[in-house]
């Protein structure tokens, strides 16, 4: 097979006259650059497959906080979007806003077994829920509404004393939040 003299081979779909003109000055050197896109497409495909696998339609429900290390459990039931009480060793938060110092919460300091600032914000949240989502008139939907209205998530650090958890639960129950969901990390998963 005869050896051919190299020449410009820019594809017809690429209108780069300037390159061809430039090449004319140095006739013996081809300016065509072939960008190998195969590794990039491979990488994109792997990324898309991985991200599709970790995709969750419900989105991120809990905002991870550095001072709250969730306990681990084997349970497989996913969380749903309801009001969140965060409890770290130092503070109690409601929807990310400071409510009370955890250190001040004990049965000795709160003989009526209620945390007044938490009680206040929970009452406000319950009223807002009732205002935004009026109770439906049909019996079945009303039952579902009542079930939803009493749900709350407790996102507590694994080292918090049970006494603090108990007083938070009692305060929540007093304001109508009697169905408590404890947030946990699946065993073998990443703690956060």
């Amino acid at each position, binding site marked *: 097979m005869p050896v051919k003299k190299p020449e410009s081979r820019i*594809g017809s*779909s690429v209108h780069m006259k300037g390159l061809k003109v430039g090449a004319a000055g140095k006739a013996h050197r081809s300016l065509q650059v*072939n*960008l190998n*896109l195969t590794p*990039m*497409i491979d990488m*994109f*495909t792997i*990324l*898309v497959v991985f*991200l*599709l696998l*970790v*995709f*969750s339609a*419900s*989105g*991120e*429900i*809990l905002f*991870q906080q550095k001072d709250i290390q*969730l*306990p681990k*459990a*084997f*349970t*497989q*039931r*996913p*969380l749903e979007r309801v009001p969140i009480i965060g409890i770290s060793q130092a503070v109690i938060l409601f929807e990310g806003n400071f409510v009370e110092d955890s250190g001040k919460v004990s*049965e000795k300091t709160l003989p009526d077994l209620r945390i007044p600032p938490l009680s206040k914000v929970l009452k406000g949240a319950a009223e807002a829920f009732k205002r935004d989502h009026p109770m439906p008139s049909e019996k079945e939907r009303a039952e579902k509404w009542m079930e939803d209205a*009493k749900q709350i*998530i407790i996102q*507590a*650090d*694994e*080292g*918090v*004393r*049970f*006494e603090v*958890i*108990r007083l938070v*639960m009692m305060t929540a*129950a007093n304001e109508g939040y*009697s*169905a*408590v*969901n*404890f*947030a*946990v*990390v*699946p065993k073998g*998963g*990443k703690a*956060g």
Partner: protein
Amino acid sequence: MGGVTEAPSKGGKKSMNVELNLVPFIDLMTVCVTFLLLTAVWTQTNRISIDQSVAKPKPNQPQQEQPKRLTVMVGRDGYSIRWSEDPKAESIPKAGNGKYNADGLKAKLKEWLDAKRFKNDQKVMVAPEDAMPYSEMIGAMDACNQVGLMNIMVADAASVIGEMM
């Protein structure tokens, strides 16, 4: 970019190079990756649920007998479980490494379930001492859930002991 070369045919003069235009494909991939990165959930969280609501008795309802109760106490020395029909409590001490023996608790609950002492819908009272860390309460509740006991309530150990007296 994405060229495909065909074997030369007898016609001869027609170009055999077919170029696949990969630009729309790369655009689509880029949009997909960006969207999925923005909406990705990196930490998975699950829940252990309890319902603390107590059904109020109806005014005309006759006085019912005391419901049977399974109690799991979480103390400094380990777990202790008690079935209301049996006066003797069963204790499950901590393992040799100082950790709570959740496997032992699970095995004992399974044994009692298999012996038909109670059914899966039996209400379980998990009662940790006030000074216990929250993770030990979750450990006890998780052990109950794993053997199929999902109807859990939480109370403090002092009040549960007071009720038993």
